[in-house]
């Protein structure tokens, strides 16, 4: 309508100018305004519910605010110098108590129905135990005896703005959870240290991971693809740095993945009996240290004064091999140091050796290394 007022040329110039002005705002990010539909039946239902309530709220807002704005415009002292006298109206008051009540019921009934569906919690075709740790997730496939950790894989340099940030900045991990498409997958969610929360928006799953509790959630995803989520319960320093990535694949690909994971585990077990040199252990231990230990003890081994003890120059790390193993296996009662007994014997031996050989510890202390057999021996029942 407005545009008819212009000649064709003028209109084109106007449109061009308009798009030039608006184009910086046309990038996808400016339109990340709403919840996404997600990829499951449940997530679609939740989205519909969200939009239903949203529009009801908008309607309520429009009605209430238009009366108010009308009155602010029409009933100013200038236009209405003599105020009305009324201060009660029982019919009106009963109406605006009962009508909202009915609207609320109209919202709560479909919400309760969806909730009942979400709570349908029979065993899945595949059951995966999800355990939150400071600050990573562990996944255990209960039927297949497959188990691994999933850590943030974004480089620290990206976080500290030293290099450009990648497309999946803070939303990428070193090892994804793989699930088959079209199968009912049940997650058994718990935590090892503090409370975490496992959120995957595309599946509309958010369940707190609580030490001592096992919460459950389930999903059926038909569309293969990669889905990203996050930890949503404040769990300490790196709460913002423990993302979740789920890869949905077709069944044959899933079976192959499980087979490969099992082979990997067998190879890892063989490593336990291998003859290790200190240099080999240190090399292997460094990468384990970087994934599991740096968050608290820091790359320098200095820890953070007052909260996380230094390993560099620590008496245990330098001179007390047995206690060193014991701390890694059992954790420290009443402190943030948890048991790392879930790591393999090789990993434990390597990471302990790494700390005993680094930062001048070997020179100042006894310089003893720990080999996988030491850990195997520790695990044997003590008489």
């Amino acid at each position, binding site marked *: 309508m407005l545009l008819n007022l212009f000649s064709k040329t003028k209109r084109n110039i106007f449109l061009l100018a308009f798009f030039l002005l608006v184009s910086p705002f046309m990038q996808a990010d400016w339109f*990340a305004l709403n919840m996404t539909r997600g990829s499951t039946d449940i997530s679609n239902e939740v989205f519909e519910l969200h939009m239903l309530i949203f529009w009801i709220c908008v309607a309520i807002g429009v009605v209430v605010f238009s009366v108010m704005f009308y009155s602010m415009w029409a009933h100013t002292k200038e236009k209405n110098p003599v105020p009305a006298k009324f201060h009660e109206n029982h019919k009106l008051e009963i109406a605006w108590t009962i009508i909202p009540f009915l609207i*609320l019921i109209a919202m709560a009934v479909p919400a309760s129905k969806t909730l009942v569906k979400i709570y349908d919690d029979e065993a899945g075709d595949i059951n995966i135990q999800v355990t939150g740790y400071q600050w990573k997730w562990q996944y255990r496939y209960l039927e297949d005896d497959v188990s691994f950790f999933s850590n943030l894989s974004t480089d620290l340099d990206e976080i500290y703005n030293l290099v450009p940030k990648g497309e999946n900045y803070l939303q990428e991990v070193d090892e994804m959870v793989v699930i088959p498409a079209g199968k009912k997958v049940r997650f058994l969610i718990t935590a090892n240290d503090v409370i975490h929360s496992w959120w995957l928006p595309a599946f509309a799953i958010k369940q707190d991971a609580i030490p001592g*509790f096992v919460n459950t959630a389930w999903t059926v995803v038909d569309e293969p693809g990669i889905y990203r989520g996050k930890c949503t319960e404040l769990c300490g320093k790196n709460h913002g740095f423990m993302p979740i990535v789920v890869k949905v694949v077709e069944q044959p690909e899933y079976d192959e993945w499980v087979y490969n994971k099992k082979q990997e585990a067998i190879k890892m077990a063989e490593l336990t009996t291998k003859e290790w040199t200190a240099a080999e252990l240190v090399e292997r231990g460094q990468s384990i240290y970087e994934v599991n230990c740096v968050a608290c003890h820091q790359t320098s081994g200095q820890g953070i004064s007052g909260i996380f003890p230094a390993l560099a120059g620590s008496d245990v790390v330098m001179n007390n091999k047995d206690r060193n193993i014991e701390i890694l296996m059992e954790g420290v009662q009443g402190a943030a140091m948890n048991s790392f007994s879930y790591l393999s014997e090789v990993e434990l031996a390597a990471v302990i050796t790494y700390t005993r050989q680094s930062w001048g510890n070997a020179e100042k202390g006894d310089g003893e290394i720990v080999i996988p057999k030491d850990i195997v021996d520790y695990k044997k029942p003590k008489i």
Partner: protein
Amino acid sequence: MSAVIENHHDDHDHGPAKGITRWLYTTNHKDIGTLYLWFSFAMFLIGGAMAMVIRAELFQPGMQIVEPEFYNQMITLHGLIMIFGGVMPAFVGLANWLVPMMIGAPDMALPRMNNLSFWILPFAFFILLSSLFMEGGAPNFGWTFYAPLSTTYAPPSVTFFIFSVHIMGASSIMGAINVVVTIMNMRAPGVSLMKMPLFVWSWLITAYLLIAVMPVLAGAVTMMLMDIHFGTSFFNAAGGGDPVLFQHIFWFFGHPEVYIMILPAFGIVSHIIETFSRKQLFGYSSMVWAMLSIAILSFVVWAHHMFTVGLPLAAEIFFMWATMLIAVPTGVKVFNWVATMFRGSLTFETPMLFAVAFVVLFTIGGLSGLMLAIVPADFQYHDTYFVVAHFHYVLVPGAIFSIMAAVYYWIPKWSGNMYDERLGKLHFWLSFVGVNVTFFPQHFIGLAGMPRRYPDYALIFADWNMVSSVGAFLFGFSQLLFLFIVIKTVMGGKKATDQVWEGAKGLEWTVASPAPYHTFSTPPKVD
């Protein structure tokens, strides 16, 4: 020495003592009200400075100015200071100034306890803030301090935090008892319960809520203290304890606490809208009943903060329905305010601007609260920026706008001077724009999937975070203008009349401006 004592004796009946002792030893409700208000203003600026640090870090993705560890300390202290140091003491300050004047009482019923309840507060916050300089840093587990992050995994300063919370709780309980005793016993003849000004009603209900739930908070932190130092395992799963128990106890305190921070605002806004509409408040008795229902319901909705902890289906449904029920009395209040304005004779001085903005923005916060009550949808909203947007909408343009409105509305009575209307309006518009630019985009960020308490975020959230930060800086720095306006008014300005506002009703407007040091030494006559 003797001269001082004689002076003190001479001044006893006529006015305040001179110098610092006036403030240290005062038992005068007006002096104590002033102390509370200035204290809360100081805390508001400190907590606000922390918010500036938070928004500066979130201005862009990546870690720029603080480390995640310090970021967590900032979000924790920002929450604790704004709630316990900013909003609550400001309302207690207003209660001190206004409740006795509104009911025609000479002072609060328990003046010495009044002095004590104020003067322990600065110590509580000194202890809390000093934890920033302790080894291991300040509390870093969020203002909700969920165990075991706040017990086994907490920095050593948590013990000081617990002590500080105990002191704040003691102060609140004493303040609340004082309000209840004053209202119940010291109303002038003729001021029956159903004739009390709504601010008095709102505070009576608030005070009962405080007395009911502050001991629960004290219990929670004491259990934490036992877990940390005395080997108990209330919240430690490895010792047979229950981390979810902590959340039940905390939110049994926490949800009524939410209403503690909004009920007095309801009272304030009712007075201001009535005055500037020049029309009697619509539905006085339904306003009272609405506040009572909200207060009672607040005890049976706590688990709506915990929909994702794995509650049984029946509990989820109960807490969803109970929570939605609160929308009914809250709606009644909003409708009453609108009906009061309808066909009134409206003017928009600064207090009215803040009050009208309160009604609109608080309603937006209320509606997003309704959305949060829907359990399946909450699975997507919970612990995202949508929640941050929701509670900041009810607390900043809700509670804090009502406090600012109250200051502009009553400061002529307190100081005897009119504030600068032009500057007041400028302050309002800067705050109004700032608050919306800060918090409205946070709805988008949350729905798009950004969790709260994140020091860094994925690139998709970058644009709206930047907008939000710009709004926060605008809002933050506008408050220095507020400080300037208040100081300017206290120092001088156009003299206020006793009535101050054309449409104002109530006993406080019958006394001189500024209000004499002692008012209603003989009770006024009220029909």
